[in-house]
């Protein structure tokens, strides 16, 4: 779906067009679910979070003001829903066992390394993890990521930097040992 189409659809949904909203959910469900999955690392939790996010979307779609990309706005919604959801469940995201690194002709060694990287990502403090997710995994600009996390652009840059430093240190250490 091209940008203009998407924008029209969002506008129509904001105006109360149920069909447009249905199309919107159909279109963006995948985006939401994939991101929720990456955010919490667990498919069934992600389904619940996505469901909540879709419901919230119904109520708050009119609040989207077009200042940032719709996906960034969605990510923000998903993160908030995810936090609420885990709070309501009284637990934290468990291991990211649903996530895999897909790369054709990757060796099993690379696979294991990838798994370690993903696990390490989930060991990071929450703010850093979210920043890395948005910037490195989703390819958002620092500005967009700042919008999605509701913080300053500098904070994102700093968090990504910190995260990189930590990851490097961790794997450096492992290399030293191993």
């Amino acid at each position, binding site marked *: 779906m091209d940008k203009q189409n998407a924008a029209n659809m969002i506008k129509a949904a904001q105006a*109360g067009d*149920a069909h447009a*909203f*249905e199309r919107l*959910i*159909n279109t963006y*469900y*995948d985006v939401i*679910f*994939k991101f929720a*999955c*990456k955010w919490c690392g667990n*498919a*069934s939790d*992600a*389904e*619940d979070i*996505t*469901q*909540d996010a*879709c*419901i*919230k*979307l*119904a*109520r708050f779609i009119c609040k989207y003001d077009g200042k940032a990309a719709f996906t960034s706005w969605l990510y923000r919604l998903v993160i908030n829903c995810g936090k609420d*959801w885990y709070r*309501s*469940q009284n637990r934290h995201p468990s291991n990211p066992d*649903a*996530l*895999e*690194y*897909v*790369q054709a002709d990757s060796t099993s060694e690379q696979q294991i*390394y*990838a798994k370690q*990287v*993903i696990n390490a*990502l989930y060991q990071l403090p929450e703010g850093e993890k979210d920043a*890395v997710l948005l910037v*490195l*995994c989703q*390819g958002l600009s620092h500005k967009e990521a700042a919008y999605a996390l509701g913080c300053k652009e500098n904070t994102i840059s700093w968090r990504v930097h910190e995260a*990189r430093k930590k*990851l*490097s240190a961790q*794997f*450096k250490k492992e290399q030293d040992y191993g």
Partner: protein
Amino acid sequence: MDDNKRDHILKNIDTPAIDENAKKRALNLAMAEFDSVQKEKAVEKEKKFQGFQILSRLMGNSNTETNKRKRNAMEQRSHKKFIYGGMATAAAVIIVAGVGLNLAPNFGAGSQLTQHASIDTLSTGSAAPLNKGRIETLSQTRTESALVEQESFAPQPSSSPAPKEKADQLGGRKHAPQKKQAEMQRQYGMIEGKAVPMRSKDEATAARTMIAPTAPSSTNFTGHAHEADSMIALAPADIMPNHYQDVGRDKFSDFTENPFKAVADEPVSTFSADVDTASYSFVRRQLNNGVLPQKDAVRIEELINYFDYDYATPTDKSEPFKPSVTLTESPWNTGKQLMHIGIKGYEFTGEQPNSNIVFLLDVSGSMNSPDKLPLVKNSMKMLLSSLKPDDTVSIAVYAGAAGTVLEPTKVSDKAKIIAAFDRLSAGGSTAGAAGINLAYQLAEQNFDENAVNRVILATDGDFNVGINNREELKDFVERKREKGVFLSVLGFGQGNYNDDMMQALAQNGNGVAAYIDTLSEARKVLVEEATSSLFPIAKDVKFQIEFNPERVSEYRLVGYETRALNREDFNNDAVDAGDIGAGHSVTAIYEITPAGSPTMVDPLRYGKKGEAADQGSTDVSDDIAFLKIRYKLPKENVSRLITQAITQEKNGPHCPTVSLCDYGINPDTQFATAVASFAQILKGGKYTGNMGYDAVITLANAAKGDDPFGYRAEFIQMVRLAKTASDMQP
């Protein structure tokens, strides 16, 4: 360098595939929420009425946290528009008192249950205008009590100075953001008010009802009613806001009542047997809640067949039933007659066959209410008592995943089975895993050719395990049926009860569909009628009646709309039809117009009168109709035929075969007539003439008979409830 590698990895993280079921559920929920948001907006646009807050505060929400927040938000508002708020409160209280008093006698009984005014036009068509009228009268007559309540409520907006002061202080500096916050809180409050702490997916069921503008609990029900009513009361008289309408999400297949048919056009009527009783229990539950059931929920034949009639039973297994026919005057239309055709299945006298039973239980979070999983457990334990020690039982559950709770176990090891039931608890989400597959696997694993192999499914709603397409599921069940594993369905709960699917499954699985609303219903289905529910004596039972145009000018089959068959299907053994268990009775009622009496359908002006007369021979001229029943024995695939001519002497009213009985001669016939009348009245009374609930009560009362379990007495009680419920309607 490592950074690049890691970045590459992070960029290429793959997530699991999307579950289409989950997507659909989320879409449904989101659409429901979207609708309610739009409705709220429409209402807000019409008038800036702030009564929601005041009312929801009065509703006595158990969530104190939410309440507190709401109150804060409210106080900030009342600070601004204090006088309006007070007025609105006073107005609201009067209405609350009015409606409260109004609803109390009707909803009090079922207050812990979900209230769904059905979408039926009969029951809710325009409840709001009526309520308005009632509110006005009540608020006049009940001013006194309203004032008492007002006193207790009114001080609240003004008499909690501390938070208000705080609001004042803050209000000076941060007025705008605070207002925004209040707005947000209000919105969250709305969400939370409806979506209580259920989060799991399969609670699509539960959550859906909550998010939609339906009322999950009686408190909320009245609450919503108040909202709706107060809107009406406060809106300008010329604008009628789109009033609140409760939408039950129970799904029933849509059908219309059979019409009168001219014998000249269509002399043959064909239908399949139906021994299900789900419709009766569902109707009873709705009536106990004080609402009329939706019309599609009333399947007349299921109401009639809920009761046991004392028809003559054969003792021979090979011809498992014999028809008995009674003719009475029709109470609905003068000049018409009712032809009751009853069959009763042969009852086991000796040893009951072995059974291999798999319970497939829905244990998703939505089953976590007293009328669901606990009732399921108790019902299943009851069923154990009707099984033999040698029978095998296994338990499979589905929720977050499908799993085997109990491997096939002999009933003699009762303690183990009961322990397995007791361990079950509802919770978690429904991933919609392969529950039914697993159940069939268990049944096949322990398949016994000489036993009754049956899966018993107990669930509250959407059957979204594994295959969720209805047609696909039907085919799946049908294939398994051919292998010898049958499926029975027990429905529980309400609000999202998917009757449509349940019927389809049970019919294709050669089983019964029952709806369990109380423990006594469980007892009836699983203990008293265990043999009927568990052991089929005949399958694919079809009825075909050919009317003699010389004696009958038109006929109408009462009920069996969902079971109609084509004329050619009767002799086609491949066509599936209803099954009859040991001791089941099936009653079909035809309303017929004897030749010569005034007809509903105008006769054809250019009809072929001569031809019919030519064919009439002396032999058959006494026949009213000719009844044919086809059935297959459980293990056979070729059908057998029973035929019987229904004869009446032309001049003598008391012929040995069939006579025009007076009521009272046969109480069973009379009672069946009463039930049929009731069911038709519930469906709108298109064909019942002037007959009302009172006449049904009189008719049924006189025919109560022995009634050892009190079912008939309960029916009469139900008619009374229906009368009250219908009086509430406009």
